[in-house]
């Protein structure tokens, strides 16, 4: 100790001043450039939202929810069939994508050995699925529907197309959620004599639910806004009945908006705008739900 203090003559050297603080001219310029980019993005979005809102304002009434669409009387047309159709198709999508996606992810994360050829094959396919353009899924679903002898413009075919579309997202989100579950939890469970299956279903998956739910909801909200793959299923734009089952015909909101926006009458343009607002609100609500779930569970940790 004495040796240490003896060596120190005079006060310590002051700490060096930062050479790369926020005050530098170049960093200021860079910061301003960043802000401008951000402002531009927000501005475009705001203009879009405001004009859509102004256009659609007049038609944001109960008729939008209760009336069917119409070819001849745009002033009384509504999005009832599209709203119900969206609900049906998204439900079908969720029923297919969640079990398959979670099962595939669980297999890859918890059971497959890293050297297994089958696991690598599955993994490669998941990556490939993610890279396929959305419209191809529509063709695939149409072909599948025709192959099993059901009409292609049905809820189930739409569900298949969208489930394929979001499957890679669900799988990736689930794998990440499973990976975030501490290894100690699995060890503890196995050391108590639980089987690997029990460990998965009672410990690992429940612990991963927030992550899975967040990823899945985001994927579903993306599917909700998707029109391209469904358009390929054909004959969906003019539906004047409530879908009532998996084999029912249907239309969805993006398709309805697409149809209305392509028509020349001002009323249809307004309808398209108001339906867009509704779709936007739905997507925002879903995304908000995902954020709430994530925050709730990350706070509980």
């Amino acid at each position: 100790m004495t040796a240490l203090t003896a060596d120190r003559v005079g006060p310590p050297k002051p700490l060096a001043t930062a050479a790369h603080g926020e005050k530098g001219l170049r960093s200021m310029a860079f910061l301003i450039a960043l802000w401008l980019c951000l402002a531009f993005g927000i501005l475009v979005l705001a203009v879009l939202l405001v004009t859509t809102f102004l256009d659609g304002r007049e038609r944001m009434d109960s008729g939008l929810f209760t009336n069917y669409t119409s070819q001849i009387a745009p002033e009384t047309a509504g999005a009832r069939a599209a709203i119900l159709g969206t609900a049906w198709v998204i439900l079908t999508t969720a029923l297919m994508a969640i079990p398959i996606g979670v099962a595939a992810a669980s297999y890859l994360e918890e059971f497959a050995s890293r050297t297994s050829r089958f696991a690598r094959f599955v993994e490669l396919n998941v990556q490939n699925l993610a890279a396929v353009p959305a419209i191809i899924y529509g063709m695939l679903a149409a072909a599948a529907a025709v192959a099993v002898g059901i009409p292609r413009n049905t809820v189930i075919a739409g569900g298949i197309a969208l489930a394929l579309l979001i499957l890679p997202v669900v799988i990736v989100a689930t794998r990440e959620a499973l990976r975030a579950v501490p290894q100690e939890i699995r060890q503890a469970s196995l050391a108590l004599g639980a089987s690997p299956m029990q460990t998965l279903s009672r410990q690992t998956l429940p612990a991963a639910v927030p992550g899975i739910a967040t990823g899945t909801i985001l994927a579903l909200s993306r599917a909700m806004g998707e029109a391209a793959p469904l358009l390929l299923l054909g004959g969906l734009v003019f539906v004047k009945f409530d879908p009532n089952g998996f084999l029912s015909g249907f239309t969805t909101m993006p398709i309805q908006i697409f149809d209305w926006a392509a028509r020349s009458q001002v009323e249809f343009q307004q309808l398209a705008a108001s339906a867009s607002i509704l779709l936007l609100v739905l997507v925002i609500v879903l995304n908000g739900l995902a954020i709430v779930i994530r925050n709730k569970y990350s706070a509980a940790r």
Partner: protein
Amino acid sequence: MSDPGHPVDLSALAADDPNPHAGDPTVNTTATVTTRTPEAIQAGRIDPVERPRAVLGCTDVSVYYGDFRAVNEVTMDIGVHEITALIGPSGCGKSTVLRSLNRMNDLIPGTRVTGTISYHGQDIYAKDVDPIEVRRRIGMVFQKPNPFPKSIYDNVAYGPKVTGMKTSNMDDVVEESLRGAALWDEVKDKLKQSAYGLSGGQQQRLCIARTIAVKPEVILMDEPCSALDPIATARIEDLMMELKKDYTIVIVTHNMQQAARVADRTAFFTAEAAEGNGDRTGHLVEFDLTSKIFSNPGDNRTEDYISGRFG
């Protein structure tokens, strides 16, 4: 609580017997002692006379991680109702040996065990043995307390539930286990609260409670006190002395005083570089009564280690 005469047929019990403890108490074996090699006995690692009945017997056990041989030819017996301490410098393979005793190392890809580890004379690595059943009989407590993200009650009830133990009243099982782990009085009013709300020492005792809830015969502990303060450590040590009446305990520790205080027998491991390549392979140097190891060790390396001269 624990019945010393567990049935020995692990495979038959694997799936269909929900209560592995309803066995004939006279079924019993001392077979492991007779399978010891004469060299091992000569080397002092096995005491042929004074041995209590062995619950677990290792004969020439080597453990590999892929091509790397982490531990070489360990031969030792774990006596019933004894506390056996495994000591030695870091990386000498104590945890590796411990994990191989209840097949937890099966979970690490590429692990391989040669030699035999027998539980009441039955090879736990035999083809027809269910590792799940092995782990039910031989429980494990880890270095870092690892409660489930559930309530205190659910943490304890989990094992009996998944192993399909027939219990008339789960509340009683939970209370009995928490009492057994000397935790009941501290948590009896907050059983439904998250286990994460407990202190580190309490969490570790909860992990012990959770382990004894499935009524294993052996409890393996890998440095159970290394994350705890001296007071919590003392409580766990007291608890071990208490548990020893009903269970057989194997503990890995870096704390010499701890080994000297609690263990009946102590095994000293060390790792030395092999001749051919630079791999450090762990092996058992000396295994004897704790009093002998600490007062009059038979090997210089043991003496150097416990007196703090190396490792």
